[in-house]
């Protein structure tokens, strides 16, 4: 395979992809870095000169910074906890022998293919609307006062919507992992006299640990930048302003590009920390 001729052909064939991605990464990244050290207000005077690390300190010290971090982490933690726990249970359930397994799987997976704007809108209006939403009917049916979901329980609402979207993903991955579990291993542990709960704890869960890690890391990367769900539901109000939404507002709504860019650099650093862990796992997989 590896003759000199094929090597140079290979390099040539790889070039377009490498060049494109290199450009995609370097050009905007260096522009963001550049702007982050400037006072730059496109609608109010444009480029107002270098300001050093001013934007970085201002972004962190602004009153919306810590709430945005806390909103980001709350959503992240909530969604991860729900999708991983329910995902494991659901994967085990779907792995059991039953009639119509294929159809059930299709039902469970469906939410992942719904575009984020649609799921946010449908949940916000048709389910969580305090007057006409289906949940309001349900609450009234049991004699309770309907919840003002989007204003009084804004973060839990968003966590619920996003979890609904991502539960299929974690279920699917965990199901794939469970199916790869050697059934002889389970049978051996059964012969050894391990009861069901112990088998789950000592055999199934450790086997899933790698898949769970992958689920957590990949979801983290996507969840750190959820946008449409907030854009469509609360527009960042009622304490749902996440870090990425805050940056979005700084850049496009208040047109403070320097400040927003500094925030962007923070977001990039945050994402990279997660990414490093993910890449370790993926990289390990490349070796074997």
């Amino acid at each position, binding site marked *: 395979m590896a003759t000199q001729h094929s090597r140079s052909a290979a390099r040539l064939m790889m070039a377009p992809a490498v060049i494109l991605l290199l450009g995609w990464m370097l050009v905007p990244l260096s522009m963001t870095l550049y702007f982050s050290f400037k006072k730059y207000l496109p609608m109010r005077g444009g480029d107002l000169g270098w300001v050093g690390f001013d934007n970085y300190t201002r972004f962190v010290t602004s009153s919306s910074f810590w709430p945005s971090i806390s909103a980001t982490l709350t959503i992240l933690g909530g969604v991860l906890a729900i999708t991983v726990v329910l995902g494991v249970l659901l994967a085990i359930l779907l792995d059991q022998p039953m009639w119509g397994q294929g159809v059930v799987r299709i039902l469970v997976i469906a939410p992942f293919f719904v575009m984020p704007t649609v799921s946010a809108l449908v949940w916000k209006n048709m389910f969580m609307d305090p007057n006409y939403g289906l949940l309001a009917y349900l609450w009234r049916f049991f004699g309770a006062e309907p919840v003002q979901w989007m204003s009084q329980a804004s973060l839990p609402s968003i966590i619920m919507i996003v979890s609904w979207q991502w539960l299929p993903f974690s279920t699917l991955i965990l199901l794939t992992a469970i199916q790869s579990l050697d059934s002889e291993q389970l049978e051996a542990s059964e012969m050894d006299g391990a009861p069901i709960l112990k088998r789950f704890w000592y055999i199934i869960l450790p086997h899933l640990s790698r898949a769970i890690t992958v689920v957590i890391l990949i979801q983290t990367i996507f969840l750190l930048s959820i946008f449409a769900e907030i854009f469509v539901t609360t527009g960042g109000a009622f304490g749902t302003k996440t870090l990425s939404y805050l940056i979005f507002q700084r850049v496009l709504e208040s047109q403070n590009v320097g400040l927003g860019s500094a925030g*962007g650099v923070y977001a990039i650093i945050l*994402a990279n920390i997660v990414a490093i862990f993910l890449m370790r796992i*993926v990289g390990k997989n490349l070796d074997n």
Partner: protein
Amino acid sequence: MARAVSNRRRAINTALAWAVGLLIFFPILWTILTSFKTEGQAIADPPVFLFFDWTLENYAIVQERSNYMRFLMNSIIIAGGSTLLGIIVGVPAAWSMAFVPSRRTKDILMWMLSTKMLPAVGVLYPIYLLFIQLGLLDSRLGLVIVLMLINLPIIIWMLYTYFKEIPGEILEAARMDGASLGKEILYILTPMAIPGIASTILLNIILAWNEAFWTLNLTAAKAGPLTAFIASYSSPEGLFYAKLSAASTMAIAPILILGWFSQKQLVRGLTFGAVK
């Protein structure tokens, strides 16, 4: 090694799994049902489930009022175009990494993956600015390019893992049998790789179709795809459940069906082969 399970246990599993499955699917089902109701029935108290006067008028109104077809066309062009472009760039790259690996191949793959992790919001303004400069704002071409770039790492990774499964010995055998590089690709590689390429295309169309950061921020009236079409219903004056449902159903139906076909590839593509 599936073991025989008593019918009783199987029945319990079935009932439980179907109940959970239907619960998860319910919001989608409810949306589809509501799209066939009149606005009055859509907010009826108590809610009506199946026994209402089925009507198609919402679909007609939505199409008429918001020009659904134009958004649909934009979605098709943007999702299809970016995927096609990605495949054209990705196939040769994945081919060479899978079949002519060098010591740097792994690093290049990892680096490509790392570009996927760049948070979009961090580079929003530069892209916005570049788009204005290049006249790409609110153009289909612009979105085709951006979505191609953000999905290119996934395309290359997926193709790479598929190509990797084609044994190198088969290509060597073809070479020993006298096939030139062109004939090797035409007669041996392509037929063997088609299933993999097809799944890659499928998954990427889904991802591009549902992408909702760049499509919302870089388009306005002209090039907006279905994500933008639906977002336009978020304004309070647009709040009519039956019409919202009809619009939503139209936006998700094509991709839901594609998605069901490609669930296996989803795992592979989105985990970059880390879970098999």
